[in-house]
């Protein structure tokens, strides 16, 4: 260690605290011995142990020591920093120190938990880690949180139930909201449902009560047919560019255009069960009520309206907004089974659950007998986990090479809810339910299973690697389709079920949002769903400050959970923007302008837009290029530190000198 980086012993008075963590650490590590060893260190004024440092009692010990012993650095060995670093920084601040005069050593995840079979070694490791912490503490400089002005304006991407809920909740806090929706109509997937669990309410009625609240809210602006095309900036100050398409028809000629249009395409609202015109409303009562032209399918031919030939024109426009925070609520799409899987797309009697729900919604008073393509339906098979819980070696990966190994969570209850409703109306239909596990999780949702049992839905369990087979019945059979499988509950007996209709309980896959992922640099999980920072403690935040997740873009959720997530996202946005400024950790790159030569090597390796740039400035009368950091955009990754040929950059709070001192300390001779 050089004279320069090692302050004189009398300059630092370090308080060291080693936590038992209620046995989590002390069952393996000899905590008392560690503290004893720390007391030998010349910079350590006091070393203590406690059963639980994070408790009120534990924290006040630290506060008192700072005040009474005049400590000017604190090192605490406890759980992982991700858990309590923030807590202890507050403790240190309450003691009257700069909160960054604190170093947190992870003795639990990094030591006791992973070395439970070697207590002696774990104790030695604890001592070395604590020495390293002390070495770093010696070098700490005072830092301040980075404070940024925040634009009190949120952008919500997606006009489904999660986006609507989030928009309304953010606006309720007095913050402006712009909601953009890619399609011409609000409502998303929820609009395509009929009755929904657990209330049994009509989905569109519930949805429209929310849409009405959103569209009449003075702080919310809605842009349909709009998408994000560019984004720059950082939390509190995002500059976004939005591109909108026109509806093609206006209030004046809309109804006439709708009536006159003759070009028809499969209706995606009904999952292709019906056709609709290219000038269309998604459904009766949709919002906005003005029809729109389906630009993707419109053949460009003129349509005669009131004696005039009209060619619809898509007038695109882009506009810019300054936004403080963004909610991503881009939702899901139902899994589309590959052709031939369970007979899908080959046998006309095989449908997905969303299609079946649309089929039920499309019936016009055909009570008394359920029909499918003109034939009476007497027996139905439902097959669970289609597109979910895929197994390697059993299921074909998706075109992108991904196996959907997750549970889509909603399909079990949704299927049983649908079956129960069906049997209320048509009690004579026999339903056979092929499942791997029934997961009707959630308060009271088990009742859907119980009710289905009572209604004599016959449950047949199969193993994931022994899936049932859906085949066309031989000529002259009583039913058009046979489902064959091994019934796990009859000791693997081969069972053959003749049915008129097969419903595939398809799972959820996220809507493809690679453009957003690339633009915003937010992470995706292995399952393509957008990833939060921490599944428990920070469940709606992305690692990019100011960008939060709502609903099924993040993971399969039912409507209730989507709204929970949306409200949580809204609360997060409100917390960020309500104060008009945001605070960030100061662990960002810092350029020593005396050393910087303006090589630009740092910019080449920087992965964050506008985090570090070269600016022209005058040094000793000469115009030179120097690197300048925009702290809000910097993640503190350190790429630039390693790239700078002149060692002109350091990450505040985690300087190269800190690492060197820590490495020296860790490799020191230690007598145990």
């Amino acid at each position: 260690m050089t004279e320069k980086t090692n302050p004189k012993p009398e300059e630092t008075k370090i308080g060291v605290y080693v936590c038992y963590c209620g046995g989590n650490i002390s069952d393996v590590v000899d905590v008392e011995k560690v503290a004893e060893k720390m007391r030998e260190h010349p910079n350590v004024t006091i070393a203590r142990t406690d059963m639980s440092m994070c408790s009120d009692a534990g924290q006040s010990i630290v506060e008192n020591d700072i005040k009474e012993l005049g400590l000017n650095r604190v090192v605490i060995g406890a759980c992982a920093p991700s858990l309590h670093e923030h807590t202890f920084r507050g403790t240190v601040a309450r003691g009257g120190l700069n909160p960054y005069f604190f170093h947190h050593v992870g003795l639990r995840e990094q030591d006791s938990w992973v070395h439970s079979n070697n207590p002696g070694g774990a104790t030695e490791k604890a001592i070395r880690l604590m020495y390293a912490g002390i070495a770093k503490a010696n070098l700490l400089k005072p830092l301040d949180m980075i404070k940024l002005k925040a634009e009190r304006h949120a952008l919500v991407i997606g006009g489904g139930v999660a986006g609507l809920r989030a928009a309304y909740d953010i606006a309720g806090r007095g913050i402006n909201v712009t909601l953009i929706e890619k399609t011409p109509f609000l409502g998303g997937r929820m609009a395509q449902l009929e009755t929904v669990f657990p209330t049994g309410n009509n989905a569109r009625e519930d949805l429209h009560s929310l849409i009405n609240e959103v569209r009449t809210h003075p702080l919310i602006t809605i842009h349909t047919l709009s998408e994000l095309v560019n984004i720059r900036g950082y939390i509190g100050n995002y500059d976004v560019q939005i591109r909108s398409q026109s509806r093609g028809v206006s209030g004046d000629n809309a109804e006439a255009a709708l009536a006159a249009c003759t070009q028809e395409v499969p209706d995606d609202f009904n999952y292709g069960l019906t056709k609709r015109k290219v000038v269309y409303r998604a459904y009766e009562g949709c919002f906005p009520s003005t029809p729109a032209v389906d630009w993707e399918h419109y053949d460009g031919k003129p349509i005669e309206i009131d004696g005039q030939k009209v060619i619809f024109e898509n007038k695109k426009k882009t506009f810019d907004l300054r936004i403080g925070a963004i909610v991503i609520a881009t939702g899901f799409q139902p899994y589309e089974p590959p052709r031939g899987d369970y007979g899908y797309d080959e046998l006309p009697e095989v449908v997905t659950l969303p299609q079946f729900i649309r089929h039920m919604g499309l019936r016009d008073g055909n009570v008394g007998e359920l029909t499918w393509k003109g034939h009476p339906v007497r027996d139905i098979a439902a097959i669970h986990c289609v597109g979910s819980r895929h197994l390697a070696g059993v299921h074909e990966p998706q075109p992108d090479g991904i196996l959907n190994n997750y549970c889509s969570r909603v399909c079990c209850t949704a299927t049983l809810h649908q079956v129960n409703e069906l049997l209320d109306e048509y009690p004579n239909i026999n339903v056979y339910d092929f499942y791997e596990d029934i997961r009707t999780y959630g308060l009271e949702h088990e009742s859907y299973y119980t009710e289905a049992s009572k209604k004599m839905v016959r449950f047949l369990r199969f193993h994931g690697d022994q899936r049932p087979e859906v085949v066309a019945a031989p000529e002259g059979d009583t039913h058009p389709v046979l489902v064959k499988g091994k019934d796990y509950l009859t000791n693997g007996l081969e069972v053959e079920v003749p049915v008129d209709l097969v419903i595939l309980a398809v799972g959820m896959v996220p809507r493809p949002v690679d453009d957003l992922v690339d633009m915003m640099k937010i992470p995706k999980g292995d399952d393509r769903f957008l990833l939060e920072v921490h599944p428990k403690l920070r469940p709606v935040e992305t690692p990019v400050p100011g960008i939060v997740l709502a609903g099924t873009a993040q993971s399969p959720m039912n409507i209730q959970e989507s709204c929970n997530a949306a409200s949580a996202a809204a609360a997060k946005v409100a917390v960020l923007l309500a104060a008009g400024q945001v605070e960030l950790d100061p662990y960002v790159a810092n350029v020593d302008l005396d050393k910087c030569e303006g090589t630009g090597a740092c910019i080449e390796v920087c992965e964050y837009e506008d985090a570090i740039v070269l600016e022209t400035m005058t040094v000793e009368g000469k115009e030179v290029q120097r690197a300048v950091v925009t702290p809000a955009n910097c993640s503190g990754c350190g790429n630039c530190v390693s790239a700078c040929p002149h060692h002109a950059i350091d990450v505040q709070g985690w300087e190269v000198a800190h690492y060197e001192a820590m490495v020296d300390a860790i490799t020191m001779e230690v007598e145990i």
Partner: protein
Amino acid sequence: MSTRVDPSLLQEIKKYGEIHVEDCFNCGNCTAVCPLSNSNTPFPRNNIRMLQLGMKDKLLESIDPWLCYYCGECTITCPRQADPAEAQMTMRRWLTAQYDWTGLSKKLYTSTAWSIGALIIGALIVILLALGLHGPLVTNQVELNTFADVHMMHTADLILAALLGFFLLSNLFRMYLFTFPRGAQNPPPLSIFITEAWQLVLHMLTQKRFGECEDNKRWINHLILVFGYGTMFVLIVLFLSWFQTDELYPIYHPQRLIGYVAALAIIYGSGDALIGRITKKHQMHRYSQISDWLFPILLILLAISGLMISAFRVSGLPILTYYTYVGHLVVMMMLYICIGPMGKWAHLLYRPFAVYFQAVKEKAEEHNKAIAHAPAPVS
């Protein structure tokens, strides 16, 4: 070879009893708690599953319901209140109807009108025969053998026994056919049927599996009832001329003593069942179909009327003796027509045969395994 499900089977079997197996989610607690089921016969779970899916052939082949003696432990343990024990009972009724080739069994089990009709027909047959064939009514002293000639009665009993035997054995043969379906791989060789025959005798005489139920008091009571009934049956069919005499023996004479003891055994055994059904104290007595009531009631009436004949005879009351005698025969005919070989009475063979058939099945399986593992013959 896959088995086709048949949703109508459950609706059909529901006619035979109070079952709600739709509540069952096949956890298997019932089978785990049952002291009688084992890995070869994992009832009730297994046959309830077949019932849910409507696997008629599998159920017909299964003799498991006969191996259950309805202690009710499974129903008490069932976490879904699916009442597996009553499902076994119901399946026994259904199986009885399936074994019966006349089709009468199904009518009697599923229709109260048919049951009452059968009772009336039984009574009418006896009354008409009595009117046509009875001898002179001697009124100054009891001369039962003059009223009903003992040789004629013995012949009638033998004819009745032959008829019962014919129907019962022919139904039993169908049980055999269902249990060992044609075309099955490697049917058990005859030698196993012979070497396992001792099981049949053992279980018919002792009903020892009944004793393996947790509460074996019911087994003792049933054993007493079977002893009484069997004794009377043998006496009347084989030794009527020794049993029905006009000469009055002292009370300690075996002819009277055996009769009294047997009658009291029948009254005790059936009375126990009847009280059980009235108080519904035990699981097995909660649901009673008409046949469940008729069996103990008719048995008690049979025993009481038998005792009354003796009492009137000893008291020297000729007309009452003759009328009661006819009444006794009426009850007997009602019993055999209504719950005889087409009804609950038939379990006296089905149960021991089920144990026997199961033993044969298991031996045959061992035998087949031994063959499969035997070294190839050196040629």
